[in-house]
C-alpha cells in the first residue's frame, strides 16, 4: 500500500490488566478531511476492538470526545489530521483519573457542576399561563456567551489551579454559575455565592487563561472567573459598609 499513512500513539490502560498506562501505536490511512476521531474510529473498526473512548455527535456539540492530542486538550472530532504531523499522540484528559484507555472518570466535574446550582432561582414563581419573562436582546447578550459551554472538560484538563487543588470548583462550573447570576430572570446569586466566593480555588486562579485558550466554544471561563471575583469583592465591601443590606 503506497498511500500515505500516519501513526497514532494511543494511551492504553485497562485497570483489570495493567499496572500502569502505556502507549500503543497504530498505523492508519491519512485522509485530508479526516478528523482525529475518524482515525480513532478506523482503529476501533479495523484494527483493535478493545480500544475504549467516548464519542457521539461528530460535530463538536455533544462534548464527549475531548482528549489530549499532541499535548493539547482538544475535541477529537474537531481536530483535523491535516493540522498535525504524521505521528500523533492521543491521551486521555488530564487532571481526571483514567477509567479505561481514553475514558476518564468525570464524577468530580459532575458534582461540581451541580454544586453551583446551575438553574434559575426565581424571585417569585411565575405561572406558565402568565407568559414568558421579557428579556431584551441586550439583557440576553450579557450572559449568552457563558451559555455556550458543552461540558467537554477541556478547560479542567488545561487548568493549572485544578491540577494543584482538587477542591477548586473549576472553570466550566464557575462560568455556569456566572451565567445564571447574569440572567435577568434569576435571583439566585446570593445562594450561589456560598459555593462560589468561598471556594478556595477562585482566589488563587491567576489570569493564566489556559481554560479560555482551549475552550472550543469561546466561552471564556477566565473572564467569567475574574468577573465573579470582582462581584464578590463588591459584595464583601457592601456587607462591611451596609451590614443591614439583605443579599
Amino acid at each position, binding site marked *: 500500500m503506497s498511500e500515505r499513512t500516519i501513526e497514532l500513539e494511543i494511551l492504553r490502560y485497562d485497570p483489570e490488566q495493567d499496572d500502569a498506562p502505556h502507549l500503543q501505536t497504530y498505523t492508519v490511512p491519512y485522509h485530508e*478531511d479526516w478528523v482525529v476521531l475518524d482515525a480513532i474510529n478506523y482503529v476501533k*473498526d479495523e484494527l483493535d476492538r*478493545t480500544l475504549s473512548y467516548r464519542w*457521539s*455527535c461528530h*460535530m463538536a456539540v455533544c462534548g464527549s470526545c475531548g482528549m489530549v492530542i499532541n499535548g493539547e486538550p482538544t475535541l477529537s472530532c474537531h481536530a483535523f489530521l491535516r493540522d498535525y504531523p504524521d505521528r500523533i499522540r492521543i491521551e486521555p484528559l488530564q487532571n481526571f483519573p483514567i477509567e479505561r484507555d481514553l475514558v476518564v472518570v468525570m464524577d468530580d466535574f459532575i458534582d461540581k457542576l451541580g454544586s453551583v446550582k446551575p438553574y434559575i432561582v426565581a424571585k417569585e414563581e411565575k405561572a406558565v399561563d402568565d407568559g414568558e419573562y421579557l428579556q*431584551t436582546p441586550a439583557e440576553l447578550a450579557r*450572559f449568552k456567551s457563558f451559555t455556550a459551554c458543552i461540558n467537554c472538560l477541556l478547560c479542567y484538563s488545561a487548568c493549572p489551579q485544578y491540577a494543584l487543588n482538587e477542591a477548586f470548583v473549576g472553570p466550566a462550573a464557575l462560568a455556569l454559575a456566572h451565567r445564571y447570576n447574569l*440572567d435577568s430572570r434569576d435571583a439566585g446569586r446570593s445562594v450561589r455565592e456560598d459555593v462560589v466566593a468561598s471556594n478556595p480555588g477562585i482566589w488563587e486562579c491567576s489570569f493564566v487563561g489556559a481554560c479560555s485558550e482551549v475552550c472550543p466554544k469561546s466561552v471564556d471561563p477566565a473572564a467569567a472567573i475574574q468577573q465573579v471575583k470582582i462581584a464578590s469583592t463588591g459584595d464583601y465591601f457592601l456587607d462591611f459598609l451596609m451590614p443591614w443590606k439583605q443579599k
Partner: protein
Amino acid sequence: METINTDIAIVGAGGAGLRAAIAVAEANPALKIALISKVYPMRSHTVAAEGGAAGVIKDNDSFDNHFHDTVAGGDWLCDQDAVDLFIREAPRELTRIEHWGCPWSREPDGHVAVRPFGGMKVERTWYAADKTGFHLLHTLFQTSLKYPGIERFDEYYSTDLVVTDGRCQGVTAIEMRSGQVRFFRAKAVIIATGGAGRVFPFTTNGAIKTGDGMAMAFRAGIPLKDMEFVQYHPTGLPGTGILITEGSRGEGGILVNKDGYRYLQDYNLGPPDPWPRKKAMELGPRDRLSQAFWHEQQKGRTIKTDYGDVVHLDLRHLGEAKINERLPMVRELAQSYIGVDPVHEPIPVRPVVHYTMGGIDTDIDTATNVDGLFSAGECACVSINGANRLGSNSLTELLVFGARAGQGAAEYALRAGTGTDDRQALSIAGAAEDRVLELFRRNTGSESISGLRREMNDAMEAGAGIYRSEDSLQACTDKMQEIRERYKTIALHDKSNVFNTDLIEALELGSMIDVATAMACSALHRTESRGSHQRLDYPDRDDVAFLKHSLAQYSATDLPVIDYSAVTITRSQPAERVYGGDDK
C-alpha cells in the same frame, strides 16, 4: 445480580427523558426516579438539534394553523386528537422552559422571537440562535439538578424490559464502569431513548442513535408503529452528514442545482418569487425537498463530489451580520468541516437520514399496551408526525409528551404499586443478564461487528432510501434476515469488564438489526406512496387501503408480522397536499 429498587425508571436522559423525570418529581416529590442513560445527559442527541421548536405564541398565528400544517405535513397519517393536544400544550411547554432559563432569541421588546420553518403557514418556531436543541437539553439537565428525587445512572446501557403478565416491572442495564448487570425494579418505566438514524450509513444522527429503546420494547412484545417512515433532511453536509438547519432556509437561504437554477419550482413548490414565502419553494416540507433532490439527480442536474452528488444552499445574500446573529453554528460547521464560508460561497448539501417518524406504539397518554410502560420522544410514535414530521415539531414533542409520560407514570406508580410476581420478574432479569454474559464470555465467533454493521447500513441505503420498490425492499428484507442470522455468531474481542465498548457496540448492533428489519418489512408491505415513504411501483397515496398505521410485531425466529390500526381523524379529512404559497 444487584437489584436497585425505584418507583419510576426512565431509560434515556435526553430531552424527553429529562422532561419526564422533572414531571415525575413535580407530580410527587416523594417518588424515587432512576434516570438511566448510556451517556451523560448532555451528550444525548437532543443536543444536535439546531433550528427551533414550534409553538403558537404570536397574534398572527392560531392553533388551527399549527394543527393543519402538522396534519397536512404528515400526509394525514397523524392521529388528530394527539395533534390537537400537542399544539395546545406546545406554547405552555415552551414558556415553561423559558422560565427555567432557556436562552431563547428575543425581539427588541423582550418577547420571544419566532422564525419560519418548512411547511408552515405562519412563522412559529422559537429558537435560540441555531443551537436550540443544545440549549434546551442543557436547560433541562441543569434544571433537573434541583430535584432530589431524580437519581441519575449515567453510562448504564439498558438491555431488557422486565415484563410479567402484561405488566412492566423494570429494566436491566449494564453499569459500563464495572460491566455488572443491574436490575432496576420499578413500578413504572418510561422509554425515551430517541431515534435510530444509525441504521443508515449517511445520517445526521450521532453514534449513540442506535434504536436501543425501540428494539427493547419490540422484543418485549410492544409493536413498532409506522416504521417505514424515515425522514431525509434535505440539507446535510456531504461526507459527514452534519445537519445544516432548515432555519437557514427560514432566514432566506435558497437551493440551486448545478446550473444555479432554483429547481424546486419544477416540483410543485414554486413559483420562486417573491422570496421568502411561507410553505413554498425552500420552505416546503422536508419529504418533498429530499424527493426533488432525487429527481434532479436522475436528470443529471446535481453536482458531483467525492462524497456523492450535492446541490448548493446559498446564504450569501443574507449578509455576514445576519448569518453571524442567526446562524453562527452553520457558519462554523461549514467552515470547519468542508472549508466553505457561507458568507462568501454556497454550501454543498445533500439529503441525509434525520428522523424516525415511527416508533414504539403509544396512545395519546404515552402509554403502551404493557401496563406501567410509557414512551415519549423520537423513540415513540403517538403519532403527531404521521408520514413526515414538520420541522421544529420534534423538540416541542419531546417536551409535551415527555411531561405527559412523567405525569402518566407517576400516576400509575401511585395507583398500581409494585408488581406482585417477584420471582418471575427476577427470573426474567436473570435471563437478561445471562444473555449479556454469554455474549461477553463467548470465545468463538466469526462475524465482525463493524463489518456486519456496514452491510446493514448499505442494505438499508440501497433498499429503503428516499425512493423504494418491491424489488429493492425485498432484497433489503432478505439481506436483513441474513444479517440477523449471522449476528448470532458475532465475535467479541474485548474481555475487560471496564467500559467495554466492544460489548456495547455488539448490543447496539443487535438493536439496529431489529429496528432496520421492522423498517424494511413495514415498507415492503405498504404498497402506496405517502409522505416520506415513496414507492416507485406505487406512486400514489391510497387512502382506501392505507390510511392506517402499520404495526410491526416482533418474532424471535421470523420476520416481523405487519398489522394495521386505524388513524384517528377528527376535523381534517385527507386532501391533496398543496405547497407553493398561500395564493395556491
